[in-house]
């Protein structure tokens, strides 16, 4: 895979491919793909990294901002609870100091105190005096019949005797109402000890919790050290039920945790432990409400990231497309120029060779011509020449052969001359006949009928003979290739208007499809596969345009093709 990737991203290879003159479509597709991948990676990777860094930075800073108020709220509420409990505890303690054992043993006084407490502080349910020595309820003010009840065996009694004070967990009183009990021991100097105990309902707990101002989705409650609800929970259960959330005990700081709640939803948990009694205040908020701002920011962040990524991809795709097509175009132009140059070089070296051969042959040919001419002269000037007829015929055929050779050398020299770009006043009909001279033999062998309908008084035009020869040779060669043996090619010339003459070359060959027709003048387009360079007609088109003319083609498959070439009478150059 790693190797494969390296191959994919091999830039040097891509660049090397560019310098190759091979114009396979694959190369540009590959190049385009590689540039796209490279550009996308180079842009998306830093963008993603930025987004990730931002994400984490925002997350950590926002977390602080979210956690702080939660901790603050928990601490404040815990303080209120502690204050409330300590206040109640102090109150009972004060009573034990302000009143003597005898006073508190009097039911009337006890009732009066309870009445005052109820009136001034609220929440007090009963008040009792218990003998420290044996744990018997000595006096009781309140709704229950607890007088004479013995507490000696109960845990709280042991604790209050040991520590001097005691606050109970919440318990259900006789009226099925959650209560807590507070007990305070008084040890007199005489050694007598007694305990003042009161029960307070926990309405105040609920008040403190509702004072936190939580929304409907959130919850707050007190737990004792066994994880039993000390207040009602909106979400997890009633008072004195076991809390389904496991809250770690111990530690006196305020803790914030994210976890999955029992119902599976993500919650944000804040809890803090009391020093005494061992209660834990728990605040539960759904993560979605706590992190609302964070989620909003996150979605904004994601949207910006997505939008930029899409934008990058679009821009990269379009840009690369344009770039690669430009490169392709430039390559093609360069290749075309290169091929044209090559073609030209080839032709001009053939031209030079042809000229050399023609010249070398010309001299001996001239001698043969003169010698034969002299023989002919001698035969004619000698009155009584033996076998005059026979010799005349022989010499005549020698002279005829010389004349044929002369035609060949002239044609070769004409070909050589075509290499030179020159404007001259020329007769197009003559030029067409000259070009047809090159194709005569093939036409004869293949029995192709070449019809001519040349306008009699076609005006001469200023143009380049060599280039025009190439144009017509190309088109006629194509026509010859298109027609079957015994096919037909028809050439017409006419004066189109005051400035233009026209040539049409029509064949009854295989014709072209519309698709082929659309590409016919494009460089390197060929239907001849290995035989064609795909340059003939594009060069032809280039020449005609250069000479100020125009070229038109009509074709129907299996019916034939007609080329029309229009040339200006006066040279535009």
């Amino acid at each position: 895979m790693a190797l494969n990737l390296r191959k994919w991203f091999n830039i040097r290879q891509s660049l090397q491919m560019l310098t190759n003159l091979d114009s396979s479509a694959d190369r540009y597709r590959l190049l385009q793909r590689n540039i796209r991948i490279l550009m996308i990676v180079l842009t998306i990777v830093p963008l993603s990294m930025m987004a990730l860094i931002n994400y984490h930075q925002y997350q950590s800073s926002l977390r602080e901002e979210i956690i702080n108020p939660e901790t603050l709220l928990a601490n404040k509420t815990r303080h209120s609870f502690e204050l409330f409990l300590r206040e109640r505890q102090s109150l009972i303690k004060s009573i034990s100091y302000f009143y003597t054992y005898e006073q508190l043993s009097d039911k009337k006084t006890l009732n009066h105190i309870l009445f005052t407490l109820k009136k001034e502080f609220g929440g007090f349910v009963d008040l009792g005096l218990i003998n420290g020595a044996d744990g018997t309820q000595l006096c009781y003010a309140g709704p229950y019949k607890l007088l004479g009840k013995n507490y000696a065996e109960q845990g709280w009694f042991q604790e209050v005797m040991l520590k001097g004070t005691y606050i109970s967990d919440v318990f259900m009183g006789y009226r099925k109402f959650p209560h807590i009990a507070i007990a305070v021991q008084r040890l007199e100097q005489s050694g007598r000890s007694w305990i003042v105990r009161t029960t307070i309902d926990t309405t105040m707990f609920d008040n403190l919790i509702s004072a936190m101002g939580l929304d409907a989705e959130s919850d707050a409650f007190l737990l004792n050290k066994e994880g039993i609800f000390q207040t009602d929970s909106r979400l997890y259960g009633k008072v004195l039920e076991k809390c389904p959330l496991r809250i770690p005990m111990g530690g006196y700081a305020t803790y914030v945790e994210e976890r999955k709640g029992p119902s599976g939803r993500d919650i944000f948990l804040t809890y803090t432990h009391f020093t005494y009694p061992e209660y834990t205040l728990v605040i539960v908020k759904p993560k979605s409400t706590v992190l609302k701002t964070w989620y909003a920011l996150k979605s904004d962040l994601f949207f910006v990231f997505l939008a930029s990524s899409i934008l990058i991809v679009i821009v990269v795709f379009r840009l690369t497309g344009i770039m690669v097509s430009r490169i392709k175009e430039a390559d093609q132009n360069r290749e075309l120029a290169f091929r044209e140059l090559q073609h030209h070089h080839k032709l001009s070296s053939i031209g030079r060779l042809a000229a050399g051969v023609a010249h070398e042959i010309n001299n001996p040919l001239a001698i043969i011509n003169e010698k034969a001419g002299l023989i002919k002269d001698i035969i004619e000037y000698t009155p009584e020449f033996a076998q005059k007829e026979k010799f005349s015929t022989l010499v005549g055929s020698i002279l005829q052969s010389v004349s044929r050779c002369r035609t060949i050398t002239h044609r070769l020299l004409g070909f050589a001359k075509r290499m030179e770009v020159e404007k001259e006043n020329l007769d197009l009909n003559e030029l067409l006949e000259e070009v047809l001279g090159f194709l005569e033999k093939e036409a004869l062998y293949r029995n192709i009928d070449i019809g001519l309908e040349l306008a009699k008084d076609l005006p001469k035009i200023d143009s380049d003979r060599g280039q025009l020869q190439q144009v017509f040779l190309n088109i006629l060669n194509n026509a010859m290739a298109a027609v079957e043996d015994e096919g037909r090619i028809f050439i017409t010339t006419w004066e189109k208007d005051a400035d233009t003459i026209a040539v049409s070359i029509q064949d009854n060959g295989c014709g072209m499809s519309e698709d082929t027709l659309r590409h016919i003048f494009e460089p390197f387009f060929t239907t001849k596969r290995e035989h064609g360079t795909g340059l003939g007609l594009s060069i032809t088109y280039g020449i005609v345009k250069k000479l100020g003319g125009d070229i038109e083609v009509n074709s129907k498959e299996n019916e034939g093709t007609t080329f029309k070439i229009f040339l200006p009478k006066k040279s535009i150059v």
Partner: protein
Amino acid sequence: MDRIKILLVDDEKEFVTTLAERLELRNMNVSIAMDGEAALALVENDPPQVVILDVMMPGLSGLEVLEKIKAINSRIQVILLTGHGATKDGIRGMQLGAFDYLIKPIDIEELIKKVNEAVKSMV
């Protein structure tokens, strides 16, 4: 009518002798030169009416000889023979004052025609 006096200049011996013989047969007075120097000497000493001059020669080229002949006697008509087929030399020659040019191998009848025209143009 006097025989037309012709000077034939070409470096190819076989060509020049044979052509001279053919022209003699046609009642012309032909002298021969094998190179430019010899031709110019003859033009100085025994001026012809028409010079038939090959363009491609070693030493002085046909066009140089043409210029010199015209310098010696501008009335002498010169017909150029180009072996090249290239009309360039012919056209250049005509600009230098040649009467016409013919492309080798030549047709004797055409040469005679040109010679006659050249002689006529002198009168």
